[in-house]
């Protein structure tokens, strides 16, 4: 049997990294030339490669943020290409959770499958958190997936995540593979009832 156990994830605490801007796409997170590979190895060093090269004080370049574990972003983060290389690069750089105004659908799904929670919050809360981190990069941010709350210094606000995904973190089933494979019989039954599966076989 496969190793289907993934760890339960209920709280994540650490320093933050504020990355301000809407519609940051996965081509920017990891340019396509770094996808010429058959593994995800080494992607962490290339995260935001072009943006960092063009902007010396890009947050991912700044010394005070090098130990950050919580990335704080704005609207529609991770839009565009479905490349899992993008969240892999972010996670391999050291990020363990993301807080943002909104996330692109596929990016969010990839993060769930990797065990990296992405939670959304009101725009003014996200901006306040980004400002707080800029003022004090050592401020401890705590994300609690049970109470769905974020605290940092004097800040405390509610965050959201679709309940199905949230349960996957809380129950430790974010790596769904083993669970999916385990229902082989039900899968076969569903397949049998689909007309086109039988046409293909005829």
């Amino acid at each position, binding site marked *: 049997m496969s190793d289907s156990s993934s760890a339960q994830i209920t709280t994540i605490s650490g320093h933050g990294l504020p990355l301000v801007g*809407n519609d940051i796409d996965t081509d920017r997170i990891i340019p*396509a030339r770094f996808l010429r590979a058959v593994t995800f190895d080494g992607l962490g060093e290339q995260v935001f490669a072009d943006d960092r090269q063009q902007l010396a004080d890009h947050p991912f370049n700044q010394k005070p943020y090098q130990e950050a574990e919580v990335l704080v972003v704005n609207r529609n983060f991770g839009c565009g290409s479905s490349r899992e290389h993008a969240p892999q690069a972010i996670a391999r750089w050291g990020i363990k959770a993301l807080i943002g105004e*909104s996330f692109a659908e596929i990016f969010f799904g990839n993060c769930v499958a*990797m065990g990296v929670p992405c939670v959304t919050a009101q725009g003014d809360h996200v901006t306040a958190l980004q400002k707080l981190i800029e003022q004090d990069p050592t401020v401890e941010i705590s994300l609690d997936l049970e109470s769905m709350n974020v605290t940092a210094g004097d800040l405390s606000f509610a965050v959201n995540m679709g309940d199905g995904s949230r349960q*996957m973190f809380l129950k430790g089933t974010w790596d769904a593979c083993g*669970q999916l494979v385990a229902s082989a019989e039900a899968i076969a039954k569903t397949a049998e009832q689909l007309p086109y599966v039988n046409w*293909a076989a005829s």
Partner: protein
Amino acid sequence: MSKGTLFDKVWTAHTVGTLPSGQTQLFIGLHLIHEVTSPQAFAMLNERNLKVMYPQRTIATVDHIVPTEDQSRPFADPMAETMMQALETNTTDHGIRFFNVGSGSQGIVHVIAPEQGLTQPGMTIACGDSHTSTHGAFGAIAFGIGTSQVRDVLASQTLALAKLKVRRIEVNGELPHGVFAKDIILHIIRKLGVKGGVGYAYEFAGSAIEALSMEGRMTLCNMSIEGGARCGYVNPDQTTYDYIKGRDFAPKGSDWDRAIAWWQSLRSDPNADYDDIVKFDAADIAPTITWGITPGQGIGVNEAIPTPEMMPADERPIAEEAYRYMQLSPGQQIAGTKIDVCFIGSCTNGRISDLREAANVAKGRHVALGVKAFVVPGSERVKQEAEAEGLDKVFIEAGFEWREPGCSMCLAMNPDKLEGNQISASSSNRNFKGRQGSSSGRTLLMSPAMVVSAAVTGQVTDVRQLASVS
């Protein structure tokens, strides 16, 4: 919550069960894989000692990294060669059908599956590629996934998913001359925004959509993801059935009649409930072109680049970033913008009808001095068909390069790239910073006809004006 839509019916038919998390375990009828997002998935499978549960329901091809000039092996780029070999090994080891270069059936994954009749109404289709939404043109529920999910589909033919909401987007009336499916979707994204579709499946409907060919519908659904919608679809109709009939993997004989009956039954009910409905008038749509760094930053070819004052406050920062990056000024007319490179191809606009429309404009004209222009057919079959019609000669005589099939400069994972801050007129789908292979390269998205119009004049030009001159 939606009820009675095609999305609801297909979702229900493919539901295996409810997972402890509350998510749906959804059966995937057709899984498409390619060389970029699958090798790590196979590695994960092997690590866990899992096999592919339904190898006959996965189809592979190679598209992103293939060179479009010299395709001889080994590829000049050793990394591309490694990826190619990984796919060859993985498909052989797991008994997966692979349409390799030179098979006569290779091409961009979202071009080859429809053209071979693999894509059918009522299916769920997944692929490690965001433009999987393309297949929704047939009334399939098709969406992009990441590599861990590719692993899940290989291992179980299912995914853990939450159901999407459904937004019906009606486009009614007749499209003006010189306006294509590409313009419709650029217009929709311009109006609804690049995140407007997050959490939704888009159902495209209305008389202007029904009048589109299957290839037009594919262009439309292809870019749903650019509007934030993970999938977009069109209800199947006679146009759909006529397209599928007789293709390699289409149902045959008595299965065909059963197929039509089933497909018809999946169409959204006339009284279906939607989570949202939005309507557009086809007459309002002009040849549309992007000026910025997101597909939502689009305008009609005869409009000026919007000024910050014209936008909601939250769109201004990315507009400012776009003015700087694109080296374009607010208030400036987009028409007349000088172009360095013209690219026709991609999963958005690399099909035979796209090449016909482009050739129609190119015929009897010539690429302007100093402009590099090239045409990349979406598949080996498209290339063969185009050559049989003599389209290759039209392009070559007009000064375009005629290439081998692949993703090419849409995302530049192969030798086709912009250099420095070159600006391209591109029939592809993304104008993100650095998308076309140069970290300062600039992309203007437009229809294939508009790309040719830019190529022959050396600048952004309304294709309708060009037609009146000839």
